């Protein structure tokens, strides 16, 4: 089946099997390997990307379901060479260790901050509660998101 998607602002057209999962489409067809495949059952969130403006778990969405839609992946978070405050926050607050859950966590964090620029700790915890991190115990992820909320875009922190 033909599928045309706009990923991080760039349009891609491919002919794919109808059963191809979106995560495999992004990783194997488009070479965008920043999104990861962790569980198959929508539990871990390593595969979270945005479909239009909403975070989704791309391991349980077919590539063809994204036809005509916009996708944002971790590769689209930075503005040019300037990291998104969320990316800066994860580096500043040790919000990652192995890095495998990080892209999905950061996309959810950016979505939250777009809707709620000044979230409470409880709101951050709830926002990421559908995603699993095995390294951080979540504490520093929460701190990272709160850091990003306080550093709204002006590059006041050196890029790591």
């Amino acid at each position, binding site marked *: 089946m033909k599928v045309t998607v706009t990923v991080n602002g760039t349009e891609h057209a491919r002919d794919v099997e109808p059963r191809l999962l979106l995560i495999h489409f992004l*990783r194997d067809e488009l070479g965008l390997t920043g999104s990861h495949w962790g569980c198959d059952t929508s539990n871990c969130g390593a595969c979270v990307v945005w479909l239009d403006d909403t975070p989704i778990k791309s391991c349980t969405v077919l590539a063809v379901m994204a036809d005509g839609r916009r996708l944002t992946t971790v590769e689209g978070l930075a503005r040019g060479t300037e990291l998104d405050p969320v990316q800066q926050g994860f580096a500043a607050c040790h919000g990652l260790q192995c890095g*495998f859950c990080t892209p999905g966590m950061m996309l959810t964090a950016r979505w939250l901050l777009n809707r709620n620029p000044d979230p409470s700790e409880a709101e951050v915890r709830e926002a990421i509660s559908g995603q699993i991190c095995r*390294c951080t115990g979540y*504490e520093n992820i929460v701190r990272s998101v709160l850091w990003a909320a306080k550093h709204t875009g002006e590059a006041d922190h050196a890029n790591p």
Partner: protein
Amino acid sequence: MQTHKTSGNEVYGAFPRKEDARFVRGQGTYVDDIALPGMLHGAILRSPLAHARIVSVDASAARAHPRVEAVLTGADLAERGLAWMPTMSGDVQAVLATDKVRFQGQEIAFVIARDRYAARDALELIAVEYEPLPPLIDARTALDAGAPLIRDDLTGRTDNRIFDWSAGDRAATDAAFAAADVAVSCDMIYPRSHPAPLETCGIVADYSTVDGRLTVWSTSQAPHAHRTLYAIVTRLPEHKIRIVSPDIGGGFGNKAPVYPGYLCAIAASMLTGHAVKWVEDRSENLMSTTFARDYHMHGEIAATADGRILALRARVLADHGAFNATAQPSKYPAGFFHIFTGSYDLRAAFCEVTGVYTSKAPGGVAYSCSFRITEAVFLVERLVDLLARELGADPAELRMRNLLRPEQFPYTCPTGWQYDSGDYPRALRLALEIAGYDELRREQAERRARGEYMGIGISFFTEGVGAGPRSQMDIFGLGMADGADLRVHPTGTAVLAISAQTQGQGHETTFAQLVAQELGLSPDDVEVVHGDTDRTPFGLGTYGSRSTPVSGAAAVVAARKVRERARLVAAAMLELSADDLEWAEGKWRVRGDPEKAVGIAEIAMAAHSALELPDGVEGHLDASAVYNPPNLTFPFGAYLCVTDVDPATGEVKVRRFVAVDDCGVRINPMIVEGQVHRGLADGIGMALMQAITFDEAGNCLGGSFMDYLLPTSMECPSPELGATVTPSPHHPVGAKGIGESATVGSPAAVVNSVIDALSPFGVRHADMPLTPASVWRAIQGRPLRPDITG
């Protein structure tokens, strides 16, 4: 005790991680990110049955699939001598089953196809005829007469016993119990669990038919040990094998062993001449790769009437699954379980462990357990709480009264291990202070009066981490020492190559700090190379919290060799004797003339220049070291967990978690604290949620994240951390391991807290995981057994 301050240039501290630049951009390179031209994809056909004889395997329809290149069965591998592989524990494990299957999920055939999906499709086309055999699920029946014999492949074997092993002094322990005023015992199960790193295991194997070189990218915590094992199993010359462990999405012990899928991919690449990728899915990871724990423990503690602990006794049944495939020092079949005397000043201790085969996935030592100290700490800390209850004593006071005192170190415990250093009362006092212990007890009493069930649980742990020494500890015959190579370039930047392998622990940062500190450099000037056997010296890798204690020590020793070499060059530069120089503020400085000094960068350029050097002084500054640790390091800590239990639903909320850790000198405290955060989440998960269970037929009931529950941001509170620093006297910078401390120490604190909350109901013990159902059943006086479904 030696000082850990090695120069005036203090670069230890919360230095930002070098790794993060790539990870926050989504630019990490994990095994599944690797794509090679012409690469094929493997998939494994697995047994749906726990125990069955294989009558036939017919792969002809799969081979006829248009996108399938080849199918390997056990028979195909047997022809090549690859159907079985050695385990890390002196046993053998089937790569692809030839005779029978011994656990649900066991590997039967390997399909190699042109894409991932076609490989999966073709699995459906393989016809396997089974003759079902009775499964063996309950380890407690494994030694019964008439129990199904799991390992009939082993010549002369008539039962399911793997080993009987004991440590300590039985007679002295029995005598201490006989003389004691009080003895308390408890049966407890440390349930089967799984490390479940977010990245599953996988490999890309690329065999070149031109030059006979095998290049392997794999999720390996021990690339050098894997290379040696592959050389032995495949009979390829070891110098033709290169293992690359790129970025690893968490390990926790799950990525220490060699798995059948790895060998299948290697065999498939050798067969087809193409690169072959195999990446398991989540169910395969949970059902077939190494599990953790699964210890059935009977523990006893003896004390005087006034609360002086005298002795410990433990009897353990260890379920090792279908193959004895634990990855641990080979002289210790129960790992370091026998450092089970904990943190207390005991007279005597004795433990005996029996290991058995069952028809479940193999493994046992995995998941940040410090080679089974996790199980031991849990046993002791539960017993101490039970003793406190028996004596009507406060559990904090009872611990304080019995903890080893600082002046007893170095301390040789009753089972013969020498703890290197510690100040235990200080750590416990700090934890109680952070928690506001007395106020918590007052609050608990008030709440109880209102019918609210709040628990306060304490655990104190001592770990032994950083294996070897090599004469005492080996895995697969390989002594547990690690190398480091340090090259200093003419302009004064350095590249450190290490045998340890990061899976998120931040080695690229911490190890740069270690070297920078020794040489007066900035960590930015030190690049750390790891995870590539062609580019790094031999060593046993990263597990058992051994990176900083062993590999880190090797890096420091190499850096100190560089520094001494630099001293001779500096003397030549300054036309002085080396004795006239002192190392100060990161430079070689002329004694009595602090203005006259040269740093490593200047010295490095001189060392590579045409400068005339004294006789016997080679040019350049490079150095290497192999570090054979004289002993383990013994980190310790005091944890306190506050829970609230709803007796109507059985739901447990962890309200607070206080953790005081002493891992000696902290090189990067930010990274150390991150390690502790992770382990506390493990403790909450282990105590409340995580368990791999089986039904009577041997079906794994924890085969997905729908069933195997891991803690999320909603279950993990913000930890309250404290630190004390008691340097290790034998580590070059006084550091101890930290990677597993909180996983080892925290489950007992959570369970003690929940049992404390439930004490008004007369609940004395309940086994993990303390799910709402389990807690509710315990309140009703009908506790659940965690190893078998309720």
